[in-house]
């Protein structure tokens, strides 16, 4: 297979016209040496009434259109029509997108305004004109691309695309007569006359466009291109950082591993000494209550404070200490009885000592810092004082009560 390929890429001798030719004559071709000769010849052929003929030159000759009796080219009509179409389409696009489909308020400006639409409209006009001109000229008027013209690969074509001028009169012309045509050519000074035959492929009626191999190749290429594009784009646009819409991110999700840390754990404990918001660390934690000398009750005594203190005492303290501080809470022996709050020791205690016991705990009593907020503790302490006073009332207090 490879050998065959390499063998076919041999030196191509321009004299080898390898396309198979039929025996059917396409036309007679004559070659001329100078521009004046070809112009005269062309005008003679026109005068004689031939219509199915053409002149072949390496570059356009001035006046040849006239000499051949040709009318002006019609490419301009196509260009103009499609140019105007382009202009209208551009304007329509801008107008529809900006004021009908999704009117977007930009700087308070009107949705559609002609002056800013002009640059794009202008470019659209030019684009359509240009494309129409090129495609119209090639496909519509020149019937190109056309690779199997009988003239391609002939010796005539090689001359005519380089430095000689030629005329071909085709056999399909009504007036075509081989001898007469040859005479006409020679009378105008042709230095060479060649017979051009149809190619085999010209005589078959199969349209090359619908050739099975060609269609197969097109479809195959299409499928292959589509598949490769789809798979590549799918990969690149969704899997390759940073084009992947931030689907892959360099972050640690909860409870996932992380290669960044030595123990590979994504979940980390807080740094030593971290406190919760609003947390006030208790500086006397774990110390004996005798060290507590600096704490003083920040709350003023008021009905509200006392009611709060009562409420909280009844919830948190009463199960062990009882409703009146006697230590006869409703636990009834399930938990060791606390000492009474009306002992001499308790009466002499500072508020700070009570605070320390609530916050730190003492002996069997655990710390109530989690359950009772700081302000509530001071309110409870005020209430304890009230209870103490109630059990150790002076005569003055009794008089006031009356």
């Amino acid at each position, binding site marked *: 297979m490879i050998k065959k390929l390499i063998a076919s*890429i041999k*030196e*191509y001798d*321009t004299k080898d016209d390898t396309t198979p030719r039929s025996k059917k004559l396409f036309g007679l071709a004559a070659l001329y040496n100078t*521009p*004046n000769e*070809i*112009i*005269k010849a062309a*005008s*003679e052929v*026109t*005068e004689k*009434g031939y219509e199915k003929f*053409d002149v*072949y030159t*390496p*570059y*356009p*000759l*001035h*006046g*040849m*259109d*006239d*000499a*051949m009796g*040709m009318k*002006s*080219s019609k*490419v301009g009509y196509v260009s103009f029509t499609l140019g105007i179409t382009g202009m209208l389409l551009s304007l329509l696009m*801008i107008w529809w*997108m900006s004021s009908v489909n*999704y009117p*977007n308020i930009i700087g308070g*400006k009107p949705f559609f305004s002609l002056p800013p639409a002009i*640059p*794009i409209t*202008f470019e659209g006009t*030019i*684009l359509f*004109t*240009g*494309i129409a*001109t*090129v495609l119209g*000229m*090639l496909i519509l*008027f020149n019937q*190109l*691309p*056309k*690779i199997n*013209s009988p*003239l391609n690969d002939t010796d005539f*074509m*090689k001359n005519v*695309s*380089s*430095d000689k001028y030629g005329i071909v009169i085709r056999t399909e012309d009504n007036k075509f007569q081989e001898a007469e045509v040859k005479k006409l050519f020679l009378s105008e000074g042709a230095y060479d006359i060649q017979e051009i035959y149809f190619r085999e492929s010209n005589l078959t009626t199969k349209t090359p466009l619908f050739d099975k191999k060609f269609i197969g190749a097109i479809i195959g290429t299409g499928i292959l291109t589509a598949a490769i594009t789809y798979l590549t784009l799918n990969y690149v646009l969704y899997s390759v950082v940073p084009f992947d819409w931030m689907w892959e991110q360099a972050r640690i999700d909860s409870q996932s591993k992380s290669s960044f840390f030595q123990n590979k754990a994504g979940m980390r404990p807080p740094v030593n000494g971290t406190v919760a918001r609003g947390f006030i660390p208790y500086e006397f934690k774990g110390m004996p209550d005798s060290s507590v000398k600096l704490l003083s009750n920040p709350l003023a005594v008021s009905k509200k404070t006392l009611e709060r203190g009562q409420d909280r005492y009844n919830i948190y303290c009463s199960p062990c200490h009882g409703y009146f501080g006697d230590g006869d809470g409703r636990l009834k022996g399930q938990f060791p009885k606390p000492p009474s709050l009306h002992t001499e020791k308790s009466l002499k205690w500072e508020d700070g000592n009570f605070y320390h016991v609530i916050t730190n705990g003492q002996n069997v009593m655990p710390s109530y810092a989690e359950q009772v907020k700081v302000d509530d503790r001071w309110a409870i302490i005020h209430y304890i004082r009230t209870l103490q006073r109630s059990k150790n009332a002076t005569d003055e207090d009794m008089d006031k009560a009356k």
Partner: protein
Amino acid sequence: MSLDSTYTRELPLVEGKPTFKDIDNVIILPTETKPTKGWWIAFGISSSALMLGGFCLALTFYYGIGMWGNNQPVGWAFGIINFVFWIGIGHAGTLISAILYLFRQKWRTGIARFAEAMTIFAVMTAGIFPIIHTGRPWLGGYLLPLPNQNGVWVNFSSPLLWDVFAVSTYFTISFLFWGIGLIPDLATMRDRTTSKIKKTIYSVLSLGWTNSNRNWSNYERAYLILAGISTPLVLSVHTIVSFDFAVSVLPGWHTTIFPPYFVAGAIFSGFGMVSTILILVRKVFNMEHIITIGHLEKMNKILLATGMMVGYAYAMEFFIAWYSGNTFEQFVFINRAFGPYAWAYWIMVSCNVIFPQLFWSKKVRTSIPITLILVILVNVGMWFERFVIIVTSLHRDFLPSSWAMYTPTLVDIGLLIGSFGMFFTLLLLFLKVLPLVSISEIKGVMDGAQPTIHPHPHKSNSNGHH
């Protein structure tokens, strides 16, 4: 009375009276022979520059625009400077192809094909920058008015969008213009090549062109129409590029002189680049009799003219800034000339206005070495013009607390070098693959190529009577 203008002595468009076969041989030879050592050296340099640019591009894509020197307030810098620079260079090609064709300046034939190729490669290089200067360049498709999942359309009032349409249209039309110009030449090459692969390729690309006059007639009309629409196209494209700046409110940008100023500047810089490359190419490929001193001299005249238009624009900007009494405008121009970027400003003025004045002298215009130096300076000066316009207006605008300096990073510079690499690589490939002079056109303007008699035959009717 013919239009020959015999009262002016025109230099022959092709010197030395070569035959058509000689023309074929000389022009097609580079495509049929292996590259020379000189070509390989040039290709090595340009492809290294291209690879450097590709590497910097990969860095930019992966790490983002932070790799560039852009900051607040200088949000546009090298990326947009390079964009405007390369688009401007492209305009000379269209001017030579289209506008000089419309003006029937036959001397354009020697340089038109090459200039058009330059346009296409310059526009390809330029088109990269607007896409890569965004944060997510892979979403560049959103620039086009295509239905999308967000259900929104683009903003048609923005010059940035006009740019999208203008540059795409410009590339398409230039490519088509260049393409149809190539068809007859590819046919010539098809008919003389001895390599089977090349024959297949040329046969396909030349679309079966048979050099028939009926085809030539339509071809010429299409060519004229394309030249006719390319002319307003080239004017509109750089006008739209200038609108990127002119429709803003920045002092130094918001001025009505920008469209003609930019177009003149584009033609100026483009001709500078064309001349630079042609001087080198004509020597290397032995085409000095096709791309003659006459061509270079005419191009130098155009350089002088457009250089003076650019100089006029500089002076006018200063005058209007003073005349307007607008303190911000006045400050911007004084800052340009005497501020921290004054070195860039004076490079610009000397390379664009002062040095080209040497072209008044015919001796200078026809001297190849001096011309080469001056046109390289023109390229430098025009790059700096865009630098001055963009960076100085941005780095010190209305509010002094927002002022900052701009410094390019190595990635910026790498991308600039890479853009030159891309341009020259494509150009070098073009030189070896396609004919760099339009063979059919040059044959058509040689002495003795056109007939001197103009018969008007009367067609006989089918009976054969006159």
